């Protein structure tokens, strides 16, 4: 793999209720590649993703040591340092969850939500960004005539693509996906897989997946989470 490194994890140790989950992990993730993380349930695959966007911090009794660096505009930034606020970090490092989690509002409002958080209100600009992100997520043609309908009216696969599009609207450089197809049927899952491969042009992707066949189809690199550390597959 010739791609440059995008994320560097240095000597990372994470514990929950004083029980270590990871110990002294050192890892590099390449830019514009899909890295798959596999491994048995309960080993902390999802937790590992949450270390990369600091989402674990709302959990009580959790503790982390070590450093996570990401390359932003040619500069290595410590995501736990003071230069990058959590909201800014999470706009750069988007996340998509196992079960689609649209907010209880219309498709349009779901898409506009991340922009509203930053105070962007100019309608033409918001509309342009929403359209672009929905196109990137292969969803535009399916929803363009019903943008103001509730997002819950979409099928599961469409909802998941909406969530991916919603993450893309902030133009993230890294996208974390936590078993993004596990609640979907084979057809919907395959659309998402194609989408992820296409998104490599724009982002660096880290995908947690249970399915080895899926990993072999889409991943450039695969890591297996074993007791407290990673092994290459």
């Amino acid at each position, binding site marked *: 793999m010739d791609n440059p490194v995008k994320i560097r994890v240095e000597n990372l140790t994470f514990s929950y209720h004083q029980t270590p989950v990871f110990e002294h992990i050192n890892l590099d993730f390449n830019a514009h590649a899909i890295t798959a993380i596999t491994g048995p349930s309960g080993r902390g695959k999802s937790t590992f993703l949450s270390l990369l966007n600091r989402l674990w911090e709302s959990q009580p009794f959790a503790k982390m040591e070590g450093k996570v660096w990401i390359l932003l505009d040619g500069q290595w930034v410590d995501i736990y340092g003071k230069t990058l606020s959590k909201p800014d970090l999470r706009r750069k490092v988007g996340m998509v*969850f196992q079960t689609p989690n649209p*907010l*209880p509002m219309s498709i349009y409002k779901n898409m506009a939500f991340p922009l509203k*958080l930053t105070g962007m209100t100019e309608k033409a600009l918001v509309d342009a960004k929403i359209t672009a992100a929905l196109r990137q997520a292969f969803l535009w043609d399916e929803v363009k005539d019903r943008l103001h309908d509730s997002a819950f009216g979409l099928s599961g696969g469409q*909802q998941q693509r909406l969530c991916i599009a919603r993450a893309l609207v902030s133009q993230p450089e890294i996208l974390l996906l936590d078993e993004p197809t596990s609640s979907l*049927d084979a057809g919907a899952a395959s659309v998402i897989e194609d989408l992820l491969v296409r998104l490599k042009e724009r982002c660096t992707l880290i995908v947690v997946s249970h399915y080895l066949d899926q990993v072999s189809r889409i991943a450039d690199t695969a890591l297996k989470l074993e007791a407290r550390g990673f092994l290459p597959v």
Partner: protein
Amino acid sequence: MNIRILGGCLRVFSWGAVLVLTGSVLMLLGYLLVKGVPSLGRDLIFGQVDVLDAVLLKKRVFDGLFPAIAGTLSVVVLSVGLAIPVGVCAGIYMSEFATVFQQRVFGLMFDILAGIPSIVIGLFGFSGAIFIHKYISKDFRPCLAVSVVALAFLVLPYITRTTQAALQGLGDQTRQAALALGATRVQNIFYVLLPRSVSGILSGIILAIGRCAEDTAVIMLTGVVATAGIPGSLLGSYEALPFYIYYISSQYTDAAELMSGYGAAIILLGVCAVLFFLAFLIKRHVAGPAGPARGRFHG
């Protein structure tokens, strides 16, 4: 075998409990309607005064329940209005900002507050009024404002606890959705968590409305009187339906007066029903038209 018998007994007992509960509600309502409906009418509320004159406050109603209805409505709206911002904010703090230790300490405080008998809260309000009368202003005496503050204290724990429970009941999926999109903690609370908890918070508010409307002990000590007319100021006395029911039933001179007490009880229920309905409308409006998340998904 024993377990089967036990299961059967539990089932019969549960059925019995549900029947007793339903039966009690129906009996209570039925009794109230049978006793109270004959006295219901224009005269019960407005006495001899013309309805329009009374509502437009042109003439004072002396022999009807209109001032008591107005008094009860004012006391409920003002005290719940005072308790909502404080209670909801305290609930947000408990759920979103407090450490586990703080939750335990403050939770205990709220539970103690919830357990204080209303007569004690009334006494506290009364003492407060005396204090102000003695040290701040000689003109101050038990009045609508004192009742409102005391009742707000009475219902604060309901609102705080239901807000806290509603917020804490939201799953990680809901909590993390906006955070992962770059929302700050405060944005997450106002854009996602609170709107998703509205129905829980509203159930606390409905409890609070009921509690304020029915309470007699607090208002007896803090400003309610038998005849005061429409409440004109926060610093004046007022009338209230539960107090009217209380003194009619303890001091009635003939059957007709007692019947008017039953009529007042029906009106009190009606006032509560209207307030609950308003709360329900607000809930529908705030929660928005989008349906709840579905459990299962398919492509």
